[in-house]
């Protein structure tokens, strides 16, 4: 009797210890799941973020025409800087990024990285390490507006062309003004008066809309021709309020954006064509409420141009950015000495008008440069500088190529800003 009692007690006591021992394995397993799982989750988050940055950096290199090997090394540098700087990663072996170019134009790039993460507590359950992978994709394809039942695309896309023309006194009194007018005539003449829309804004001391957009597709070609003739002789009352004086580029762009935004049934290719010969030096609106163009009398800031205030150029830049954000292709023809100067890349607080214009058009993280033909272009649009009538013609020829979509794939209008798509 007594013996049995003792036995009973001992057996039960042993059972608890045994249970605890078995439980401990399960407990350590659970703890391992939490610890190692948490660590793996953190590693994946870090890996993924580093790969994102690397993919964007590599994409930028390729958009700017860099070689693939160059993109690879840049991606690796960004990745290493992000990933290995994390204190915990000190003991990990280097990770080789994997780049896969799915398409050059428009750009579509896939970047991935895999690592094997050592586990600390999971070996109890027989797992020594764990594969962790991260992947990012960047592309600069333009988001296509959904068109219901789109017909077979045999002809080019419709265009909404907003022409914004600088008529400040500096260019009006130049002997080259007549060339500007003649070249811009070729642009609207190259479009289809039945299916494309054209509007004309001029600016100087003020901003004036000579021809607004029609609500329906098409534009009044005869009226545009007449206005083009009028613009050749600047001292006509019809141009008052828009011609002569300073350079109100910012307000003109604001008005252009508003007109483009109000358009019913936008065309697939909205284009803003800006001709300018100088740095914006007039401010005509409250910068905190850019919609209120011209609600305040214009205020002249900074003449001569070398003292042009950052405020007015910033407004000009914002106008271009706002257009780009709405998916408008921005084509800029810059003319004359005033836009030259400041080398690129430009640091913060840049002053030159050309630098501001280029910077506004640039892809994120890019320092835009003019090529041998004084032109810079990317998926956002184009900037073309000229100093004489020959250069002017070359610039406008490029503009016509873009609006008539005669350019090669990858020309402005076919690509959008570089972005992460996954």
């Amino acid at each position, binding site marked *: 009797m007594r013996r049995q*009692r003792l036995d*009973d*007690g001992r057996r*039960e*006591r042993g059972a*608890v*210890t045994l249970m*605890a021992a078995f439980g401990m394995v399960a*407990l*350590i397993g659970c*703890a391992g799941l*939490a*610890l190692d799982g*948490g*660590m793996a*989750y*953190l590693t994946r*988050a*870090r890996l*993924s*973020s*580093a790969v*994102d*940055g*690397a993919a*964007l*950096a590599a994409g*930028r290199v390729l958009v700017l025409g860099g070689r693939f090997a160059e993109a690879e090394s*840049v991606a690796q*540098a*960004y*990745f*290493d*800087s*992000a990933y*290995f*700087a*994390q*204190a915990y990663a000190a003991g990990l072996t280097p990770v080789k990024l994997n780049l896969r170019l799915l398409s050059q134009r428009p750009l579509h790039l896939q970047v991935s990285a895999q690592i094997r993460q050592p586990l600390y507590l999971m070996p109890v359950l027989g797992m020594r390490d764990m594969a962790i992978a991260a992947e990012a994709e960047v592309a600069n394809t333009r988001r296509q507006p959904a068109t219901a039942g789109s017909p077979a695309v045999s002809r080019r896309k419709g265009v909404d062309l907003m022409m914004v023309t600088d008529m400040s006194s500096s260019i009006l009194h130049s002997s080259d003004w007549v060339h500007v007018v003649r070249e811009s005539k070729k642009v609207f003449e190259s479009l289809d008066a039945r299916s494309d829309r054209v509007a004309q804004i001029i600016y100087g001391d003020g901003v004036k809309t000579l021809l607004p957009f029609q609500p329906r597709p098409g534009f009044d070609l005869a009226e545009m021709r007449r206005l083009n003739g009028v613009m050749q002789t600047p001292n006509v009352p019809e141009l008052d309020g828009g011609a002569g004086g300073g350079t109100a580029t910012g307000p003109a762009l604001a008005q252009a954006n508003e007109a483009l935004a109000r358009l019913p049934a936008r065309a697939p290719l909205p284009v803003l064509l800006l001709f300018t010969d100088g740095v914006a030096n007039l401010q005509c609106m409250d910068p905190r409420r850019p919609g209120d163009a011209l609600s305040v009398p214009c205020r002249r800031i900074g003449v001569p141009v070398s003292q042009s205030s950052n405020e007015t150029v*910033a407004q000009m*830049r*914002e106008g271009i*950015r706002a257009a780009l*954000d709405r998916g408008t292709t921005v084509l800029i023809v810059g003319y004359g000495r005033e836009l030259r100067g400041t080398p*690129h*890349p430009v*640091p*913060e*607080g840049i002053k030159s008008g050309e630098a*501001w214009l280029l*910077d506004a058009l640039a892809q*994120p*993280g*890019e*320092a835009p*440069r003019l090529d041998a033909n004084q032109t810079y272009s990317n998926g956002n649009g184009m900037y073309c500088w000229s100093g004489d009538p020959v250069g002017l013609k070359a610039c406008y020829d490029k503009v016509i190529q873009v609006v008539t979509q005669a350019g090669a794939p990858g020309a402005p209008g076919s690509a959008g*800003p570089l*972005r*992460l798509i996954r």
Partner: protein
Amino acid sequence: MKPPRVLDQARGGVLIEFVLLLPVLLLLALPLVDYGRAIWAPVALNDATRALANWLSREPAAGLPLPQRLQQAVAAMHGVADRGDDRCFVVTWLVGGAGGAASRASARWPETCRIETAARAPLAQRSLPQLAPGQQAYVVEAFGNQPPIFLRGVLGAAAPPTAVYARAVF
């Protein structure tokens, strides 16, 4: 009447054993809470730096000085960067120059960063990407302190907080 007594005795033994084992079990289980929090903190910081870097590299507010842009970025993140109070973001904007020299601007948020770690390691020692002329990079770093709840309960204020660090290069 005797058998119940036997059972009672045995149950008492089990109870004693359990009580003896309990601290061991608790010691194993409770730090997991702190550990979970210590894992969560860098993940949250990591997500915030990534979001900030992505926003900044797109530059919707380009043209503004970096500190203002950082402020706008934080505002645009709808409080992602705001979660928790003991943290601090440092943005370094690098622009590659000729000969490998990069110009840089930096800003921090909040401007009155209380975390000293941010200043402790000079930036140059935390590896930065080599940039070609004209290339730009935004290095967003986050520094945080994560106080351990469980250890604080045991050791009081003597338990040191875990330093948390995250960075994104875009």
